[in-house]
């Protein structure tokens, strides 16, 4: 069987699928760690969109953006996981339902 050449919109739809899987995880999960992982999934999906457009338009600016997004994602996860550790020290939980100091 001869496979068709991969069209750009196929790759972009795949990106939106991964992005929305990450969005679903962000909405339904209660564990802060899994929420952070979902955010990483969404960032990855956007990176692939950039690379696809970079390839489609023959412009390397997209790949350069991916480089900067990866750096920002690394800084974000370092600070985010630091926050998770601080949260766990204070409340002994990583569950978003248990974080209700302001409400009490």
């Amino acid at each position, binding site marked *: 069987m001869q496979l068709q050449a991969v069209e750009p919109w196929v790759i972009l739809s795949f990106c939106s699928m991964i992005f929305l899987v990450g*969005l679903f995880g962000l909405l339904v999960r209660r564990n802060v760690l*899994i929420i952070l992982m979902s955010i990483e999934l969404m960032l990855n999906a956007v*990176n*692939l969109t950039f690379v696809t457009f970079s*390839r489609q338009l023959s412009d*390397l600016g997209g790949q350069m953006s991916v480089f900067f997004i*990866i*750096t*920002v994602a690394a800084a974000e996860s370092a600070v985010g*996981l630091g926050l998770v550790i601080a949260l766990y020290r204070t409340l002994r939980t990583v569950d978003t339902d248990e974080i209700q100091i302001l409400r009490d």
Partner: protein
Amino acid sequence: MSGISPVAFYLFAGLALAFSVMTVLRRNPVSSAFSLVMVFFAFAGIYATLGAHLVATLQVLVYAGAIMVLFIFVIMLLSTDVPSLDLGRTPRWFRAAAAVVVAGLFMVMTRVFRTGGGEMAPGPYTPEAVAAAGGNTRVLSELMFSEYILPFELTSVLLLAGIVGAVAIAKRHTRKGAQDATSSR
């Protein structure tokens, strides 16, 4: 697009999709984290298929190497290895609503990607031109240290701020904790 192997793309895309669903739905955070590692490797494969070799390498080094080690360390430190049954506690209507929203957005996005987009003038970096100029990594590096030098330097400032912030947040309670330890003695 020409020059992309459909077999490689669909293989890596299927792997990435399966493991990303597992990342979101697994109850145990550790198995979520390892599914996420597989997603990152599959994405690196897709980048390599698209000819973005430097991005593929950075994906493995930074995401699968650095960020995931951080995640695993935090999971280990917090010792939340007891399976978290949090998915079942989310109300059923909320899960259904989230699924509906996600499916609707997917249809909208796919439609936009299929039909939308005007003609844009292609840039000078066709795969052939990049290969003739010494390969993806070389061309990208030359761009990074000439046209994109200011964002590159700003990135180092951002990383410094991130390091200082992470240490400040994670170490905030040490002095208070030490006082508590001495007073309780």
